[in-house]
């Protein structure tokens, strides 16, 4: 193991070429959250021990008023967000340094040899390049905000230190995921974040449903992980390594569209499907809303679920070589985007709406990376992290307020059900404004962040359809239409959510509404920061066709295609392969019209959908859950029940496996195998019983048999 000094400074550093990028303690970025986890974890265990003693006595640990809480409860407030803030600052320093340098090759920092057999070696090494840097910025940046928000959201929870321990551990694994220099190390982070997701979804584990949700997330994720493992095995078998640099270098030798690269990429994509909640493995994500809301913001919106997109973007070289896999990626993406969007139309739980929205937006990202627009996929990943984290935290603020209102009046209504909300804008103006910004961003309204990122993805889908040698042009035309349709649905269900939550008359209850209040500063400040990012975040990557036109206000938007250029060292190889095989992109959508025209059409359409649905939903009378006896029918019922997918899986997969398991145990194991074993035992016993008949116990019998035996032997030897 490397000593601590080399660990943080980056001991054996290699391949610093084409630029003068000096990493600034990159190891600390990973190490700090780990240290935070250890500190918080220790505090959490101490705290839990005290609370256990209380529980054993038949009571709950009394946290009392905020001023007299034990140190185990108050210290994490500083440790948890503190390590994150420092990690963010270090990342920022590295980022600015990288901005200055023109880095063509990734910087790899070796710490120690992780696994080394005779034929296989993988180092514990971090890779710093443009892609991992963007991810680090998102993770530490949004992560810090969510940590700060959590201080307000979770402060009265008895498991507060445990919460921060898990959250820090999650960030650690997430950073390993994006900074690891090999697929193997990425897999460490990959499963590590899965573990943290499991722990945090089931954070309130006393509730059986929540614990179940965590378990479901873990097991479904593991189905994807098998794909990831197989893909790694294939890589090793063919390249002898799973490190990024040699694999991508050797990938040149693969046949374009060959079976091998298709298999590798498809298996990787199975992993991505599991982690990023795509069809058909998306079922765990809506259930994952059982976790605390900031967790949903961090893990199930901003970072972990986008790991699949990161994986595809990271493996862009491989995916570019496999047009079939890319088509599958985009296809799964667009189907998921549409499918989840339709489910979101009929959900009443505010977090469920956002969960399906996340699934849908992740689908968009996959469309992006599936049509070879890797920068666009990462771009949407980034803007989505801003506005979806904002939406989740905003909903958290709402739930927090609702919860306290119901708590104060000892009401047991569901604080997450939008039918119990309504008119909250009067009570929570800041939340209201910031969430509207995020809603406009996700709906794709100009000039908010989501407009640029989503538009670019849809544009590329159309452009791919018209590429010179496009592999499946009709297919991509269909993708393009579906993606547009899903964008309209997004605008509708998000507006519906906003209207049901914030507009109209309040339905919380007369007594309860007195207790509704705006979130404290520790909660709304992160919202405000993210709101700013949701507005301006999209400006870093305004396509040329737009930036000089109306959308860029005639070129005043400052940055142009910055992200695109920034990621070029990562995507260049993939683009090279694409150009060689696909020819140039079309500059027209499948039905004619340039990028600017369709951007205008889509933003106007989305704006119209928002306006119409404000009228539509606002005109509807919504009744609180307790008075709601409405029976749904037809397709609405199917949507409300999420297409019965969970029920289907339960009947077709879960129950048969359980039945098969019981069959294996009762029939094969206890019946057949042990039956044979016991039969041998009984057989021996039976033979023994028969033979034992000769054992009369009388000496004379024995003597007689002995004599006969002796005579027999004598006779035999004589004759």
């Amino acid at each position, binding site marked *: *193991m490397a000593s601590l000094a080399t660990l943080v400074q980056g001991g054996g550093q290699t391949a610093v070429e084409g630029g003068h990028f000096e990493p600034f303690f990159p190891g600390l970025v990973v190490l700090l959250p780990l240290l935070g986890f250890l500190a918080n974890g220790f505090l*959490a*265990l101490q705290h*839990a*021990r005290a*609370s*256990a003693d209380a*529980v*054993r006595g*038949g009571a709950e640990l009394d946290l009392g008023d905020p001023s007299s809480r034990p140190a185990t409860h108050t210290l994490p407030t500083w440790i948890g967000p503190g390590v994150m803030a420092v990690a963010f600052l270090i990342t920022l320093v590295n980022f600015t340094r990288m901005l200055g340098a023109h880095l063509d090759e990734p910087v790899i920092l070796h710490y*120690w*040899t*992780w*696994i*080394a*057999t*005779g*034929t*296989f070696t993988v180092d514990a090494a971090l890779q710093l390049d443009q892609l991992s840097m963007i991810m680090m910025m998102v993770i530490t940046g949004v992560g810090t905000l969510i940590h700060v928000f959590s201080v307000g959201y979770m402060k009265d929870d008895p498991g507060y230190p445990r919460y921060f321990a898990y959250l820090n551990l999650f960030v650690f694994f997430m950073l390993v995921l994006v900074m690891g220099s090999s697929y*193997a190390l990425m897999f*460490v982070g*990959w*499963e*590590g974040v899965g*573990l943290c997701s*499991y722990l945090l979804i*089931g954070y309130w*584990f*006393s*509730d*059986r449903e929540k*614990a*179940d949700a965590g*378990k479901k997330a*873990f*097991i479904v994720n*593991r*189905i994807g*992980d*098998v794909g990831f*493992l*197989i893909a*790694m*095995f*294939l890589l*090793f*078998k063919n390249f002898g390594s799973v490190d990024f640099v040699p694999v991508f270098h050797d990938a040149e030798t693969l046949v374009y569209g060959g079976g091998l690269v298709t298999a590798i990429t498809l298996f990787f994509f199975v992993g991505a499907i599991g982690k990023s909640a795509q069809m058909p493995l998306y079922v765990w994500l809506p259930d994952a809303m059982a976790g605390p809301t900031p967790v949903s913001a961090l893990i199930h919106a901003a970072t972990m679920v986008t790991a699949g997109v990161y994986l595809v973007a990271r493996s862009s070289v491989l995916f570019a070589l496999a047009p079939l896999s890319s088509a599958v990626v985009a296809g799964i993406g667009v189907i998921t985007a549409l499918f989840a969007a339709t489910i979101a139309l009929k959900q009443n739980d505010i977090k469920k709406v956002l969960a399906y929205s996340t699934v849908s937006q992740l689908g968009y990202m996959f469309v992006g990376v599936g049509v070879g627009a890797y920068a666009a996929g990462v771009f949407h990943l980034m803007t989505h992290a801003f506005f979806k984290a904002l939406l989740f935290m905003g909903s958290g603020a709402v739930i927090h307020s609702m919860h306290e209102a119901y708590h104060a009046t000892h009401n047991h209504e569901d604080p997450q059900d939008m039918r119990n909300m309504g008119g909250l804008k009067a009570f929570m103006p800041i939340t209201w404004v910031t969430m509207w910004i995020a809603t406009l961003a996700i709906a794709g309204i100009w000039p908010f962040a989501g407009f640029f990122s989503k538009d670019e993805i849809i544009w590329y889908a159309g452009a791919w359809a018209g590429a010179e040698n496009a592999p499946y042009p009709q297919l991509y035309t269909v993708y393009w239409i579906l993606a547009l349709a899903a964008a309209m649905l997004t605008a509708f269900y998000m507006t519906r959510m906003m209207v049901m939550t914030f507009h109209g008359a309040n339905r919380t209850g007369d007594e309860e509404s007195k207790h509704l209040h705006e979130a404290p500063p520790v909660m709304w400040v992160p919202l405000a920061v993210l709101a700013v990012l949701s507005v301006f975040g999209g400006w870093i990557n305004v396509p040329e066709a737009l930036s000089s036109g109306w959308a860029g206000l005639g070129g005043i938007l400052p940055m142009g295609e910055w992200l695109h250029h920034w990621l070029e060292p990562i995507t260049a190889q993939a683009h090279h392969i694409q150009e060689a095989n696909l020819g140039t992109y079309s500059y027209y959508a499948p039905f004619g019209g340039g990028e600017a025209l369709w951007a205008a059409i889509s933003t106007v359409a989305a704006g119209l959908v928002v306006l119409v649905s404000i009228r539509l939903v606002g005109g509807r009378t919504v009744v609180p859950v307790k008075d709601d006896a409405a029976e749904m029918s037809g397709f609405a019922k199917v949507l409300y029940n999420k297409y019965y997918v969970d029920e289907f899986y339960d009947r077709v997969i879960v129950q048969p*496996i*359980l039945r*098969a*398991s*019981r069959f*294996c*145990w009762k029939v*094969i*194991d206890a019946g057949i*195998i*042990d039956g044979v*074993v016991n039969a041998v*035992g009984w057989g021996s016993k039976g033979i023994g019983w028969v033979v034992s008949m000769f054992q009369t116990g009388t000496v004379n019998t024995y003597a007689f048999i002995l004599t006969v035996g002796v005579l027999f032997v004598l006779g035999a030897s004589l004759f």
Partner: protein
Amino acid sequence: MTSLLDSIGYAGWALHALIWLPVLGIGLVLWAEEERAKNLAFWWSIGVFVLSLGLWWAFDPTSGAMQMETTAPWIPAWGVNYSLGIDGISLFMVLLTTFSTSIAILGSFNYIQTKQRAFYALMLLLEAAVVGVFVATDVFLFYVFFELTLVPMYFIVGIWGGERRIYAAIKFFLYTAFGSLLMLVGILFLFWKAKTLMGMPTFAYEDFLLVPLTGTEQLWLFGAFALAFSVKVPVFPFHTWLPDAHVEAPTPGSVILAAVLLKMGTYGFLRFLLPFFPLASQHPTVVTTMLVLAVIGILYTAWVAAVQPDAKKLVAYTSVAHMGFVVLGIFALNVNGLQGGLVVMISHGISTGALFLLLGMLYERRHTRTIAEFGGIARVAPWFATAFLITALASIGLPGTSGFVGEFLALMGAFESHPTLAFLATLGVIFAAYYMLPMVQTVFFNKLETDENRAIEDLNTREMVILAPLCALMIIIGWNPTPVLDRMEPSVRVVIERVEEAGARAAASDVLEAIPPVEVTQTLDPEDMNDGSAPAMTDGDE
């Protein structure tokens, strides 16, 4: 450290001491007072463990050959020698044995309340026998130790076990003894061959390696040896003794059974099966059969484990699944697979041993092992829940724990040679979560409902002392397995090269009946063999 060990001549006597010190301990424990027996046995085993730690430094990690070899005549008329030695394969098995014996003894302080002296004496006897299995380089000696392990285990299960202990003990004994008898026949066959070859009776491991065998002979002998070791591992479908033995055995018995006794089977694969019968070992049918059995073991027992109402039985079944990964790695017949298999052996010893200890602690508190009767225990026993979760995650092979390194390498190795079967085995990763997480949830999460569960105490100091090193090892090996892998690699290479060479020769002569060349140039000094005088310990180090 190395110079210190050299100055006391460590390499010359360490292996003998690791066998005979526990035997000496038996006398002391039996002679001690009943209440003192456990402390005496514990500190004695700690002493043995500390002594064995010296092997880590005394061992030369660059060599794949047998090291610290010593030999003395035992039964000269039959050519039986008392000869010991270790290589990179047995090194870790010895360390695992001494370590888990100490842990198991400490873990039985509460559990064992009757006939304590006898119990701890048997534990020490077991330790001596198992160490003997791993360090014997004389096949006869190996067989004696191999069978000797049955005796203490039989009594540990049969006397201190649960309700059906007699059934379990007899099943365990007969099942495994049956397997090893066939191996004895095989050993005798090899003995006669070696005698003809060398012109004198010998049971030496190196001499057996020189015995020329036709392909058919190899297949038959492979079958005999494989059966013995497969029962021990256990490989599906010879596994049904294991759940019964585990469920009925007292906690320390389960710990030792899982941690080291099962390893004797896979150790036998590596030490005897592959080197003795290299042609049979790479016969496509044989390899496919073994791999298919391993895959069935992985998937099938995972399913069976998932529906067990008894927590201990669940963990017992998972042992079969884990050992399936070991067999899978071994019959991948490449360096990755073998090293992966070895790491799984180590990791399984640590994590499953820890799981049995934890379940034992739970049983001491609650006097039941039925999963459904627990619930919400994490609220009253947070340290307990944490330790259990870490162990469970290591057991299901989460990256960052020892379980992952082993399973990853084993699967990767298997994928190199047999992608389809390896793919099926990889599905075991899913089913590992499928059996482990529901148990963790039902026991530690959910609502804390009953008063009995509410009264469960958290870990006490002794229990923390037991679990801390285990959990630490799981994580350390998970993050930095290289020191372990480095030490085993040369020895693993020796095995692989032997198999590959034999295969290459067979391919060159284009027949399965290829005969390895006979190189009777070295090894045994005939005088040494037939000299029945006082055992002069010759230091085998070169």
